[in-house]
């Protein structure tokens, strides 16, 4: 049995406390209304960059004035022309003349006023836009970290189910580690579901299509309302989360029952529910990626998005298995786990990093190559506004593991694996950051207090839940039919 080391427990509490403080600070400093945003933008424009912007807008304003006066002149000229054409002698004509002249002047005045109003409206609209982005920032930071950690444990659950169904001979010694990690899933699901509910009750603007005013003004979104509407969306979410958690619960229960049993009935049950789960998982995973990530940008769509999201959290899940295994091994708690098991996990990390890159590139290159405006804006935003994180994610998730984990000997060295694993996890966090942030905060992104605090909070919670769960059952399954093979596995 594993006992939760008090140091690690303290660390997890500190992480959660620091995280909560940071998250609170993020929400506290988010602007409350338009005035604050105006003050913020004014203070921003004092910098050199802002001044340049100012000049440009002043110039644009001047140009606008010029065209406006030109329009007025043209209108006057027209009036003069009409004068010439009209019969001058008659009184009625004079009257008509006066009447025609007057409205033109009025119109131009109205135009001028309207223009001022338009500029003001535009400014207000801009402020409102920035306000939404800034108010979204702490929410989005929380959302990214929440969905990332929840999906990591879901990725481990999928890996675990595959190992069961494939009757893998090497992994049963790691089953309890995987069950420990997936025990985060119920906790993460509850928090995540609460965020979805809060979004539905308009506490934030993470999903624009949840705002009825936006839907009314946007035909494209309105056309998707049959799918993207709050009740259907939240019911889907509930079904998915409940389905995954049921598998998590029963598969662990059966695995523990198998330890005490005299036959393999529980093992067979686990085999069956794992196979059913995998079918359920691949359908729900795909829909989940549309609902929770792709609908952040409701104008955009991509067919391989579900697979892409899957590859990202699946490789993160395998990395977490490797890191937790290495930690427990370093404490001397996993006597039957040898470097060959570690080597296998490292191969999976390597292989699925390449798989992620393959899907990332496939999605990118197809859209880049065809360059259809309705699709390509997705990447234009990311490359122009998120240039550094966008390409850093590829370096961290592809080039780094490619060069490090390609070597057979390196795959058995603990510190190399820990380093590669940490870089890959950060890289995949960045990947989720890039999926969600451009649609919620746009060019107002920054990896600051809100983002880091959210990661720390969920990291602390993850460590606490996972290692608490690990203390609840022995780290070696007793009567798994493949456990002996797994103990003697070597490669």
């Amino acid at each position, binding site marked *: 049995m594993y006992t939760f080391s008090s140091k690690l427990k303290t660390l997890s509490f500190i992480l959660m406390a620091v995280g909560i403080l940071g998250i609170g600070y993020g929400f506290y400093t988010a602007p409350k209304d338009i005035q604050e945003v105006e003050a913020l933008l004014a203070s921003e424009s004092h910098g050199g960059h802002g001044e340049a912007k100012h000049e440009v807008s002043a110039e644009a304003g001047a140009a606008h004035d010029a065209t406006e006066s030109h329009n007025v002149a043209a209108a006057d000229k027209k009036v003069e022309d009409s004068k010439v054409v009209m019969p001058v002698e008659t009184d009625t004509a004079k009257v008509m003349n006066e009447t025609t002249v007057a409205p033109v002047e009025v119109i131009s005045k109205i135009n001028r006023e309207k223009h001022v109003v338009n500029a003001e409206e535009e400014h207000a609209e801009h402020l409102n836009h920035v306000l939404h982005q800034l108010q979204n920032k702490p929410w989005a930071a929380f959302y990214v970290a929440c969905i990332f950690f929840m999906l990591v444990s879901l990725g481990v659950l999928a890996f675990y189910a595959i190992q069961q169904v494939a009757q893998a001979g090497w992994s049963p010694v790691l089953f309890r580690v995987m069950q420990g990690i997936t025990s985060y899933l119920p906790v993460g699901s509850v928090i995540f579901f609460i965020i979805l509910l809060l979004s539905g009750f308009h506490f934030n603007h993470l999903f624009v299509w949840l705002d009825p005013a936006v839907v009314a003004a946007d035909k494209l979104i309105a056309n998707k309302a049959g799918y993207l509407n709050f009740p259907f969306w939240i019911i889907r979410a509930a079904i998915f989360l409940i389905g995954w958690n049921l598998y998590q619960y029963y598969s662990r229960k059966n695995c523990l029952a198998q330890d005490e049993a005299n036959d393999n009935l529980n093992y067979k049950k686990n085999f069956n529910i794992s196979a059913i789960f995998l079918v359920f998982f691949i359908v729900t995973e795909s829909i989940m990626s549309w609902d929770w990530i792709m609908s952040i940008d409701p104008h955009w769509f991509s067919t391989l998005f579900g697979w892409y999201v899957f590859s990202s959290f699946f490789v993160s899940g395998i990395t977490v298995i490797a890191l937790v295994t290495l930690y427990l091994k370093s404490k001397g708690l996993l006597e039957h786990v040898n470097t060959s098991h570690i080597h296998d996990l490292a191969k999976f990390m390597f292989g699925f990093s390449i798989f992620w890159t393959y899907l990332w*590139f496939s999605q*990118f*290159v197809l859209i*880049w*190559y065809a*360059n259809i405006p309705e699709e390509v804006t997705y990447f234009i935003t990311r490359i122009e506004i998120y240039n550094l994180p966008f390409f850093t994610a590829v370096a961290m998730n592809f080039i780094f593991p490619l060069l490090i984990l*390609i070597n*057979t000997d390196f795959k058995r060295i603990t510190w190399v694996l820990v380093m590669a694993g940490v870089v890959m996890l950060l890289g995949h966090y960045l990947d989720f950051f890039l999926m969600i942030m451009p649609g919620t905060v746009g060019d107002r992104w920054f990896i600051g207090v809100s983002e880091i605090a959210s990661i720390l909070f969920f990291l602390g919670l993850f460590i606490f839940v996972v290692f608490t769960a690990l203390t609840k059952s022995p780290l070696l399954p007793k009567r798994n039919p493949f456990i002996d093979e797994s103990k003697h596995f070597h490669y």
Partner: protein
Amino acid sequence: MSNKVIYAIYNDDDILMDAVKQTRAAHHHIEEVFTPFPVHGLDKAMGLAPTRLAICAFLYGCVGLSFATWMMNYIMIEDWPQDIGGKPSFSYIENMPAFVPIMFELTVFFAAHLMVITFYMRSRLWPFKQAENPDVRTTDDHFLMEVAVRDNEEELISFFQSTGAVEVKVIDKH
């Protein structure tokens, strides 16, 4: 001095592995082992150095990647940068996504083919090569260990008979 070798023939890979370990422990020099199929762990038991073929393949892959990059940069960007369907041919990086499939394939092509050719050259395999088979049964169901004889012929014969060999022969090699 005549060039004598001992052929110790076995009919089971487990017995062969044990024999190899005993021979190594007794410090007899194993010239070669012939088997009809790969015996897992035999190279380790014989103390053979690990292969460096994978390192070769990695370097060949780098060559392939460089070749693809150079070729397409020269053709598409430097030599005749046409506008083909609006693709940006101003610099290599701007049009790189379109080149990636070729870069990938050439990397794999170079890595795979040059590694295979390296393997053939290092293991001296080619068409019309004279087979170096000491005993035809080793391609079917027998295992043969070849050990050099100095002046300890009698000792070696009794040693190999004790390791479970089904046949021990002394051969004058050329």
